[in-house]
């Protein structure tokens, strides 16, 4: 596994953040995890939450709609502590969709109190490399850092567990 990210710079505060991973798998297998209901539900979201996909249209412009549901006791407690519902519907779409090569996933962020709806884009590029597949995820950090910071703090305990559990995988 390899990981890298681009640090923020003073002259580019909304610089993209890039996270790169290499998995011992075929590109097609990675692609499935992003573009099928079962695949997406199997990993999306933080530990302690599950995702229930209502619509996933695997094509350019196709809809992605799902509920993010806190289902572990500590995740439920964390959301309550943050004053947030334990489940919320999320809408998005696949803006770009080039099978086994690239997709972009646009989420509509419309659940932040006091902040009007805006779109958040995730770019994913896939590269085959021998018996491995490389995945490059490019993120555009959310516009409201306070929200994400709050979420990050709420999920910290779950992240610690994840680090231990999956630390050796990649």
């Amino acid at each position: 596994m390899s990981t890298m990210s681009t640090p923020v710079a003073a002259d580019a505060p909304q610089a993209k953040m890039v996270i790169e991973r290499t998995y011992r798998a075929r590109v097609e297998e990675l692609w499935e995890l992003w573009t099928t209901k079962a695949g997406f539900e199997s990993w999306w979201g933080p530990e302690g939450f599950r995702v229930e996909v209502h619509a996933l249209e695997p094509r350019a412009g196709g809809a992605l709609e799902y509920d993010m549901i806190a289902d572990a006791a500590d995740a439920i407690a964390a959301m309550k502590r943050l004053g947030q519902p334990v489940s919320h519907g999320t809408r998005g779409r696949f803006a770009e969709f080039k099978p086994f090569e690239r997709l972009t996933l646009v989420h509509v962020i419309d659940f932040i109190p006091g902040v009007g709806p805006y779109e958040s884009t995730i770019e994913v590029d896939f590269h085959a490399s021998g018996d491995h597949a490389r995945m490059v995820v490019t993120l555009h950090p959310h516009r409201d850092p306070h929200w994400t910071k709050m979420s990050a703090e709420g999920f910290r305990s779950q992240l610690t567990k994840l680090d231990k559990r999956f630390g050796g995988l990649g």
Partner: protein
Amino acid sequence: MQMNPFEALADPTRRRIVEALRCGERPVGEIVDRAGVRQSGVSRHLRILHESGFVSVRPDGQRRLYALRPEPFRELDAWLAGYRRLWEARLDRFGAALEERRGDRGATKKEPRK
């Protein structure tokens, strides 16, 4: 209303002003020259940067000198580190899901990764 750090730095003119201040404190005239911004708008941008905590100002005779403050940059950096951790964890989960599916299919013998 005070902007959050991202909003404060979202404006390209304000980013040029920040860039112009990277080498130390400067009066408005030098900021205008270095950043290539209009004199007419620079006061408003400096006020926003000041209110957002990015810039400090102190009198120096007839002039006012502006300088960068490190705190909001540290805050941005810390926030981004947290954001990155969330995604690292999410991709750990992606890797685990991948392993699980491969195991279920039995197409490839699952090998423990380092």
